[in-house]
């Protein structure tokens, strides 16, 4: 349902992506992994038009994304939500208002309906007890859940997660993993996760794409990753300091 074809991108003299191609199936939990600063976040920002590639094509369903104008991108962004690394909730609103915001903005629902729909979303991420709290009162793990609920409000077909477990402690990180897994199983949402949390990668990923020096180094299932003879892949998945990998 989502495909990247020969996508390349440079920032000034630095070429970040050199012809990356892969497809993501509907309802799949797809991980994009790689060293810090390798261009993982850059790659997914292309999908919702936050960045434009220098070359190549990106298809979302039957639409080609790269040539679309800002207005034409709005429907794409409704179909494909993004959960940012720092949750980016609005401090001045309660959790439920944060979640209801896209509904009121895009579907022009009246406040009561919007709030009851938002409540359903909060229930999906098991956060209904915190609906009237302000984000500042919550820990990072709970904020992440509210951010996921907000991403769910417009019934997206796909959600992009930018490092969802970074800066969470182990227990909260596993809970977020479980939630992502549930989303894809129960709601059939396609989840594209940028991450280098090895535990999440090997517990919930169905397929993994590893970027290295701007190219796709390996694409495969977790089992294929573990079995890969490539020394760079092995160094990465074991988190070893010594090895051929240039970071």
């Amino acid at each position, binding site marked *: 349902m989502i495909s990247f074809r020969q996508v390349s991108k440079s920032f000034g003299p630095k070429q970040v992506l050199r012809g990356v191609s892969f497809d993501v199936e509907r309802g799949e939990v797809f991980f994009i992994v790689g060293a810090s600063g390798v261009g993982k976040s850059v790659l997914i920002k292309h999908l919702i038009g936050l960045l434009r590639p220098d070359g190549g094509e990106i298809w979302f369903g039957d639409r080609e994304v790269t040539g679309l104008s800002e207005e034409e991108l709005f429907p794409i962004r409704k179909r494909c939500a993004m959960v940012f690394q720092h949750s980016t909730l609005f*401090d*001045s609103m309660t959790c439920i208002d944060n979640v209801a915001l896209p509904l009121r903005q895009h579907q022009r629902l009246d406040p009561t309906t919007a709030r009851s729909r938002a409540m359903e979303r909060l229930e999906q991420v098991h956060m209904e007890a915190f609906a009237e709290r*302000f984000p*500042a*009162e919550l820990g990072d793990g709970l904020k992440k859940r509210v951010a996921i609920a907000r991403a769910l409000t417009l019934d997206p077909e796909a959600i992009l997660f930018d490092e969802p477990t970074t800066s969470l402690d182990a227990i909260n990180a596993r809970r977020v993993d479980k939630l992502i897994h549930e989303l894809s199983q129960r709601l059939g949402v396609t989840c594209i996760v940028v991450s280098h949390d090895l535990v999440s990668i090997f517990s919930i990923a169905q397929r993994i794409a590893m970027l290295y020096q701007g190219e796709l180094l390996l694409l495969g299932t977790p089992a294929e990753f573990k079995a890969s003879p490539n020394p760079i892949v092995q160094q990465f998945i074991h988190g070893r300091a010594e090895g051929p990998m240039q970071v």
Partner: protein
Amino acid sequence: MAPSDPPGSPAPSSPRHKAPSSAARASATAARRSMSPVGLPQLPNAPVPGAAAPRVKSRGVSQPLGAYRTLTRTLYFCVNGRPALRTVMGYMYTIGNQSLIFLAVVMSFIGMIVVYQGGLQLLRVIPDMSQLGATYLELLVKDLAATICALMLATRVGAGIAAELGSMTVTEQIDALRMCATDPIDYLVRPRFLASIVMTVVLVIVAGTLAGLSGMWTAEAFFQVRPSVFVNFDQVDLGDVCVGLCKCVAYGAAIPIISASSGLSARGGSEGVGSATTRAVVNCSLAIIVLDFVITSLGYVVFE
């Protein structure tokens, strides 16, 4: 001082407690909303803090300073700090650059409005326009130029300083400065303070001159007062110039001090920066009006 717990055991002096009860959370929330510094709301099961150790009064540990402390510390560093001429020049350039056109436009219009309205009133009483210029220039030098300019600078320079220092505070950059044994007052506030005083004087003189010229043009266009009659400094004596300059310096000092102290006391996230900025502009404006009154009164006592 010795470790109070034998290493390796779960600290026995810390009875387990669950998350604070909802009542305690609600009261904490209420306290946060009202923004009042409150004492320690006691948690259930919490040992009484301070029972084992006396409540300490920390002397050096940094807390947000009020405007008065900010001023005294800034003055202290102006005397004792390292020379920072280049930084000061940099800020002078920024302040001048961002405010000159704005002030010029505002003051030109103020000049036209004041002379036009004043002239209309004068026509009703004694249709003699020969003193219009002299009165207007006295008003301009003593009060109008400095005060209106300062009110404009409060929105421009004051808001800028408060927003910048506020966002540095909430992103821990101020703490990082302290960790480098650098006092934020010395490093950030002092150069802005010096630059603001100098530039306020300069900008007021430039913008005040423009206000005089626009007033002169208005007088000629609407009341047929020739420029040679209008430009009449008979009413302006040394005292008026002193009062005007005093105001420039006082406003130029007050704006960065008040803005910096609200910026440095910003808390929370972007909302905190926003409210610090608003507070800075409101407090600067108030301070300018109060200083205007005080300096005018003092000038009356000294020079009349």
